[in-house]
Structures are given as structure tokens and as C-alpha cells.
């Protein structure tokens, strides 16, 4: 690059040339305009056809304010059943996560492309992963309540089933990312398949396995608080009951307890995470 002195100096600027400048090229501007039009059309379609009773919308702020007003002050009357249900929720989260971890290990092993024995096991594992993961915990709860009847067993199964897919997918990815060198070394000394797993794969996967399990445990504590809304046990049941009976002061108490347990769950899991990893 030259010094930049291309013959013009700034003293020439008294009579500048006229320039046009656009922020985008013609093509960019066209693409942009088309996408804006598409977005606006989509919004127009959604807003004009959605099944909303508009008078309710205009009265919504007042209604929400009214509800919040009724919630105050939180009532301690039902504190004991609330705390009991809360412990139940925590148990559901813990047991569900535990079951999911145990079941997810073999699924993850078969679902990891690099270690799975053959294509059939791979696709079978992937089917399980996709099938369990794509159905939300609450939908699983709906299914298990239909099978086992209302109660916390349905909740545990719901938490476990959704978590299997989540855990298996992430653990399988962790297995796929391991360093292949140690495995080859073990095979070279004549180790059996089980030994390769125990000495080559497990030690490499343990840190991410712990991180993934703790993450899911944290999420499941949150999830377990809503299972009761479809009858699958825990604090959600009391929440739904209080809403149905318009006991707003109990509702607010339940909300406080839920927020408290979610925050302390986050705190504990982050503590465990720091200890383990």
C-alpha cells in the first residue's frame, strides 16, 4: 500500500465529487426485503387466524394484576403437605435420574458409532434415543399415568424415560470423541472387549458422564415440580388443587417453595459439579 497520498489532498475537498453509498448491495437488499415481507406475512397470518378472544387480551393486565393481588400474602396454612409433596418431587427427580443413568449406559454404548458392534445395534440404540428424547417428560407422565394410574411411580418412570434419550445421546457423543490411541494399545496387549471398555473407554468418559448426569439431575428437579399437574405425583398436585379451589395464598406459597427448591437445586448441583470435575 502506498502512503495513501494519491494526488488528492484534503485541501481539494472544497469541491468534492458526489458519491452514492448504500449499506447493502442490490442483491442483499432484495434478499432482505423478501425476508422482511415473508416475516410480516407470517406474523399477519398467525395474528389474524389464531383463535384468541381479543376482549380477554385487553382485560389481561387487569386480570393478572388482580390475581397477583389475591396471592398476597402467601399462606402458611398448608405448609406441611406442601413440604411433604416437595420431598416427593425431589425423590421422583432423584430416583428417575438414577434409573435413567443405569439404563442409558448400555444405550449410549450401542449408540456410539465408533464402538457399537454392528449397524443393527447402532440403529436400535438411535431409535431408543430419538424416541425417548423427543417426547417431553410431561407427555411421558400422561402415558404412564394411563398405564399405572396416578401417583409418583408414573412420575419416576416419566422422568426416567425422557432422561434416557437425553443422557444416552450426550454420553454416546462423549464416547465418540475419546482418544483412540489407548484403545489400540490395549488391543495390542491382547485385552478382551470388557477390558478395553473398563481400561480404555470408561476412564476417558467418566468426566463428561458426571457432568451430563448432574446437568440432567438439575433439569429433572425442575421437571418433577410440574408432574403433579397431570397426576404423576409431587408438588404439582397441590399446586393444581389450590388453583382449582382458588386458594391463591396457598398458590403463592407453593410458587415460593418451587422457586426455592429450583434455586437450591442449581446451587447444590453446581457445588457437586465443582467437587467432581
Amino acid at each position: 500500500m502506498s502512503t495513501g497520498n494519491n494526488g488528492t489532498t484534503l485541501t481539494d475537498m472544497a469541491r468534492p465529487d458526489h458519491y452514492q453509498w448504500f449499506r447493502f448491495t442490490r442483491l442483499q437488499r432484495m434478499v432482505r426485503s423478501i425476508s422482511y415481507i415473508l416475516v410480516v406475512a407470517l406474523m399477519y397470518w398467525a395474528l389474524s387466524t389464531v383463535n384468541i378472544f381479543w376482549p380477554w387480551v385487553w382485560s389481561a393486565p387487569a386480570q393478572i394484576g388482580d390475581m397477583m393481588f389475591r396471592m398476597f400474602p402467601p399462606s402458611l396454612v398448608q405448609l406441611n403437605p406442601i413440604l411433604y409433596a416437595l420431598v416427593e418431587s425431589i425423590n421422583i427427580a432423584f430416583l428417575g435420574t438414577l434409573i435413567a443413568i443405569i439404563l442409558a449406559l448400555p444405550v449410549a454404548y450401542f449408540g456410539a458409532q465408533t464402538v457399537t458392534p454392528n449397524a443393527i445395534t447402532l440403529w436400535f440404540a438411535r431409535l431408543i434415543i430419538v424416541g425417548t428424547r423427543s417426547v417431553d417428560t410431561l407427555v411421558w407422565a400422561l402415558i404412564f399415568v394411563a398405564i399405572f394410574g396416578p401417583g409418583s411411580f408414573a412420575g419416576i418412570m416419566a422422568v426416567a424415560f425422557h432422561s434416557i434419550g437425553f443422557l444416552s445421546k450426550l454420553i454416546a457423543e462423549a464416547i465418540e470423541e475419546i482418544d483412540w490411541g489407548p484403545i489400540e494399545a490395549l488391543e495390542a496387549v491382547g485385552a478382551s472387549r470388557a477390558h478395553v471398555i473398563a481400561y480404555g473407554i470408561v476412564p476417558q468418559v467418566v468426566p463428561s458422564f458426571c457432568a451430563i448426569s448432574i446437568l440432567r439431575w438439575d433439569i429433572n428437579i425442575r421437571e418433577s415440580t410440574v408432574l403433579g399437574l397431570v397426576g404423576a405425583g409431587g408438588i404439582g398436585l397441590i399446586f393444581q388443587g389450590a388453583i382449582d379451589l382458588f386458594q391463591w395464598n396457598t398458590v403463592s406459597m407453593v410458587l415460593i417453595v418451587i422457586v426455592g427448591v429450583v434455586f437450591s437445586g442449581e446451587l447444590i448441583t453446581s457445588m457437586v459439579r465443582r467437587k467432581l470435575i
Partner: protein
Amino acid sequence: MLKITNLEKSYTKGAPVLKGLNLTTDERRLTAIIGSSGAGKSTLLRCINRLVKADSGSIELDGTDILSLSGRALQDSRRQIGMIFQAYNLVDRLTVMENVLSGRLGYTGFFRGVFRKFPQEDVDRAYALLKRVGLSQYVNKRCDALSGGERQRVGCARALMQNPRILLADEPTASLDPKTSERIMELIAGITEELDLPVLINLHNVPQATTYADRILGLRHGVMIFDGNPDELTEDWLEQIYAGHEDDLKKQMKVGAAEYDDE
């Protein structure tokens, strides 16, 4: 035009960076401020356009005390002070033109700025400046695609876009390789001569200061201890300005000498 009296500034209590600093610009155009790192050079420039707020003293630009301003009035005085940064401080994800035009934001209404609807004379001026700094072929290139020297040219153009009354440059060449660094100094010296614009420039590089400056200020521990023409800056003075940082000085004198041999 710019008159600084008794300027004091400390970031942590009891450790002042500027201790009652006085400085007045005069008819000499390019004023270089030298001093070891930590002497307060950057803080001084940043106080002048209020990126940093000084604790006490006064900074008068054409008679208005910048220290007492706020809001709209502060913006008005900032737009009269152009600034070139060591790390260029361009918005990486915007184009060269948008960065240069952003120099007019102090004059432009909010919505015109948002939709990039700058007045025609601003666009013309931006093109002229880019031509002058030698970047007219990069108008619509994004700044993160440019080299360091090219970015600093954009930085110059942005500062000049403000139509400033005075230009501040905070170690404009410190992030560049020696050759590019010389080119940028030539550019700054050239442009400001054409515009007859006073410049306050922090330099780490003493040979560059003596080559380009019309006046040199030596800053040490937050006070001016030297003020004179480049030929008055003796070895003796340098040793005083850099006392305790002699290695620092030696290193750059050597680098500077090597550059001279190159030319």
C-alpha cells in the same frame, strides 16, 4: 485553544495517575507526549474527551470547561475532539464506510443514524477521506477483514469525519509493525498539516516523536517535566523522563535506530 490546569485523576484512592498537570496548546501543530508506561499519557488523553472523568482541575476547549459538561453538551464537545486509538477501536462487524460515517453520529439525528441515512455532504466527505487515506477500494469491506495498518487508516478517517477542532491520538502506532507504523505517522502528520489541525499524540517511540513533532512534552509520574522543541530534547532530559525505566528507553532507541538504517 486547549488549556488544562491542575488536572488530577486517580483510579484507586491514594495512587494518583495525574497530579496537578498543566498543558496549553500553542501555535505549534503536532505535539507529542512521551513518557514511560504508567506515566499517565493515556489517562491524560482520555480525560480530555471525557472517556475518563478527571477528579479535579479544568480542561478548557475554546473557553468551555469540559469537566463540568454532561449530556448533550458533553457530546457536542466530544464531537469537536477527534480521537485515534492504539487498538483502533473500530466496530469490527460494520463496514469501512459505516465506521467512517459513525464519525458523524454526533451531528446526526438518532433515526438517520439507525437507518444509515447520512446527508449527502457527509457521504461525499467520507469518500474523500477514504481516498486520502488510500482505502477507497475497501468502502464496503468489513473492518475485521482489514490489516492493522488499514484499520488505523479507517480510524483516522473516522476521527477526521467529526470535523474536529483538535485531534488526539493515543499511541496510534504501538500495535503496528515498524514499517506500517512509519506510514501511519506520515499520514497523520500529512493530513493534519493539510487541515491545519492541532494534534496531541502519545508516543512510545522517541525517534518518531523527534521526527514528526513540532513540540514535545515529557510526562513523568503524572506531571509535565519537559516542554520544548524536539532539538531541545537532550539525552539528559530523556534520562530524567525515563528514570527507572531505562531499559524501556534503550530498547526503543535501538528499534528506532534500526528503522532509520532501513529507510
